[in-house]
């Protein structure tokens, strides 16, 4: 029995080692990034690699057309290699610990502003570039812009117009309570339809609720002010309004019956066929929902987009902001061409129109599907953090352990609301406590 005895210890530890190896596999080289000459001079030539999160557009050949058009404009360019990455955030973050993360890539969410200069080539002065581009503030640090958004999204609610008609709703709700009453009307009058679908299982649609911050208060400085409060989940602040709405719809059973088994692809079709009333997603979702409605034999006109149910001074508001921002790898050896790709993509590719989004160019056109929405709701562009405090918000967020942009804490709100194990006040108290702790630790 000796051999068994020895194997026992080995078995236990190897199971563990494989877990730990998973964690440590992402360690990286610590070499210092040396900044090279700027990317503005020279003629685009040679070849570059572009990393993209739009695997669907790589597969359906859209990117091939982009590359052909780009090469037609710059005949010296030999090749543009497009790499579509499914788990974009996770994989690119890991690759960024090496030097090899493409020439052009979109800035992943986990990079903090003060880390931009370690990884990306500065594209120019934010003030100067703001004359041409919108929403540069997100990815700027100390007056330099490191990324340009490919498309602008507005934040509202995508809904099925027919369901609203059947429930007898004729006007956009102006308060969260009115919205809940409308959802209740859908539940009562349109049997078999989930009034609101959270897409809980897929997580990221739940995290999209975060981007309503700044809407109820109509305050472009909301995020900056949040760093000065110990209790953002109180006093009618936006987080209390947004997460309060989430808690209420979940506790009143106005969401899908079993959130743990939702399915994103299926949800598009369910919304298109009127089995779902509303989903809280950015305007980028509109074309996908319309396509699903058409595929299911309904009309693209069934899909509507309405503002978040809160008004300030009798007006709806909606935040507008950049989607992913394109940036240049600081280790790239063809920065000229990389820069040319970014400029071409924003000016000539027609990407933003095809995505029913706002153009990143200041004088860009508003797509037809958003016209109604932008007529009703006033757009707010969040202000940048004051100088020296660029990373304060994300530092507090990390230290608090809440991680506002991750679905985790909102999924817990849904769990608590459904099970009734904790009241809304208890949930908010905990969040406020965590936020206050984060503020203390981040040294604000």
């Amino acid at each position: 029995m000796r051999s068994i005895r020895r194997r026992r210890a080995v078995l236990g530890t190897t199971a563990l080692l494989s877990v730990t190896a998973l964690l440590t596999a992402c360690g990286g080289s610590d070499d210092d990034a040396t900044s090279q000459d700027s990317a503005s001079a020279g003629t685009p030539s040679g070849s570059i690699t572009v990393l993209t999160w739009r695997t669907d557009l790589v597969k359906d050949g859209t990117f091939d057309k982009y590359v052909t058009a780009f090469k037609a404009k710059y005949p010296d360019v030999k090749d543009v290699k497009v790499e579509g990455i499914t788990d974009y955030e996770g994989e690119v973050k890991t690759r960024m610990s090496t030097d090899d993360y493409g020439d052009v890539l979109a800035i992943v969410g986990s990079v903090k502003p003060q880390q931009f200069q370690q990884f990306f080539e500065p594209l120019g002065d934010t003030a100067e570039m703001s004359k041409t581009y919108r929403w540069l503030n997100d990815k700027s640090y100390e007056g330099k812009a490191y990324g340009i958004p490919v498309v602008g999204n507005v934040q509202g609610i995508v809904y099925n117009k027919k369901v609203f008609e059947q429930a007898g709703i004729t006007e956009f709700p102006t308060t969260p309570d009115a919205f809940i009453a409308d959802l209740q009307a859908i539940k009562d009058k349109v049997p078999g339809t989930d009034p609101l679908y959270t897409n809980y299982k897929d997580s990221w649609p739940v995290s999209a609720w975060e981007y309503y911050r700044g809407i109820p208060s109509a305050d472009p400085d909301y995020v900056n002010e949040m760093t000065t409060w110990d209790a953002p989940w109180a006093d009618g602040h936006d987080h209390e309004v947004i997460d309060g709405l989430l808690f209420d719809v979940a506790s009143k059973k106005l969401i899908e019956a079993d959130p743990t088994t939702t399915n994103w692809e299926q949800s598009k079709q369910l919304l298109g066929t009127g089995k779902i009333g509303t989903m809280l997603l950015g305007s980028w979702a509109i074309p996908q929902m319309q396509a699903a409605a058409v595929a299911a034999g309904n009309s693209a006109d069934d899909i509507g987009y309405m503002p978040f149910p809160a008004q300030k001074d009798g007006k709806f508001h909606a935040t507008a902001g950049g989607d992913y921002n394109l940036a240049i790898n600081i280790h790239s050896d063809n920065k000229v061409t990389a820069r040319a790709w970014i400029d071409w993509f924003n000016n000539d590719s027609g990407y933003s129109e095809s995505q029913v989004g706002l153009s990143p160019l200041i004088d860009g056109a508003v797509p037809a599907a958003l016209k109604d929405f932008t007529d009703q709701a006033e757009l707010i562009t969040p202000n940048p953090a004051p100088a020296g405090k660029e990373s304060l918000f994300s530092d507090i967020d990390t230290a608090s352990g809440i991680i506002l942009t991750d679905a985790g804490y909102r999924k817990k709100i849904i769990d608590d609301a459904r099970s009734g194990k904790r009241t809304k006040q208890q949930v908010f108290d905990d969040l406020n406590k965590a936020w206050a702790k984060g503020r203390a630790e981040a040294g604000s």
Partner: protein
Amino acid sequence: MANVTGVVPTPAKNAGDVRSRAARLIKPGGTRGGRRRSLTPYLFLVIPVGLLVLLTYVPVANMFFYSITDWDGLDKTKNVIGFDNYVSVFTEPDNLRVFVVSLYYFAGSFVQMALALYFATLLSFKVRFKNLWKGFLFFPYLINGVAIGLIFLNFVKPGGGLDSTLMALGLDSLVKQWTGDPDVINYTLAGVSVWRYMGLNFVMFLGAIQSVPRDIYEAADLDGATRWHQFRHIILPSIRPIVGLSFILAISGSLSVFEIPYIMTGGANGSETFVIRTVRMAFVNNKVGLASAMAVVLLIIVLLVTWLQRRLVPDEEVDIV
């Protein structure tokens, strides 16, 4: 036995002339051949040990280092902060709550061992289509964990296979939200885990049972022992070390549950396990330092449990006569 060292293969052990011929062949080389011979095993070892060091020990050493830093997984600088990460592993209530979830899987592992023992005993006697049943029972263990997660996701979803089966049997009252109900979810997931790993336990038990010489059963039969007596006094004592091993695997296994709940729920709705939390800490919350500390803690717990078990249940010479 002898060839492990990889020297000169001497297949015919008993043939004296072969051996002497081999000795003659080596002789002219003298000491040089001897040195080469003494180096050979190490040369063979260089590649596997090198790979082991590169892919296991270096990453683990790195992990120990990360666990005392505040690294976010991305930044070029890593600040050493001492044992703060270890303190928060044991002081933050959310980090402790995940251990409670492990208890469901730990309890499940006893069900699993009982079932495995039952089937192993049953199939060690004369049964028709014995190998077919063995195949059925072991099969789930061969399926990829991700596939199992997806299969059961569809099986337990509302209106899925489980609900339809219950309704077909007229047991409508038992239909539940198997993963939607926070009071049920961990039983569901532990059940899937039992389904998957029972086959492994079963094969281990069966192997141990079959190593018992057949004549002992015959002798017991002659003495008029029933099947229960045979189980109690022959089978159980002879597989004690294997049961002990299963117990250890159950503890470490229930602490490091990962893929089934991760695929099925992503740790939502109160089903978060220690490893899911570790992974989330590292890749979502960007606290690689804390996550590394959690991994180290898990490693230490498992080593501790193994050591304790060996202390409490020392291996005895099996004596069933």
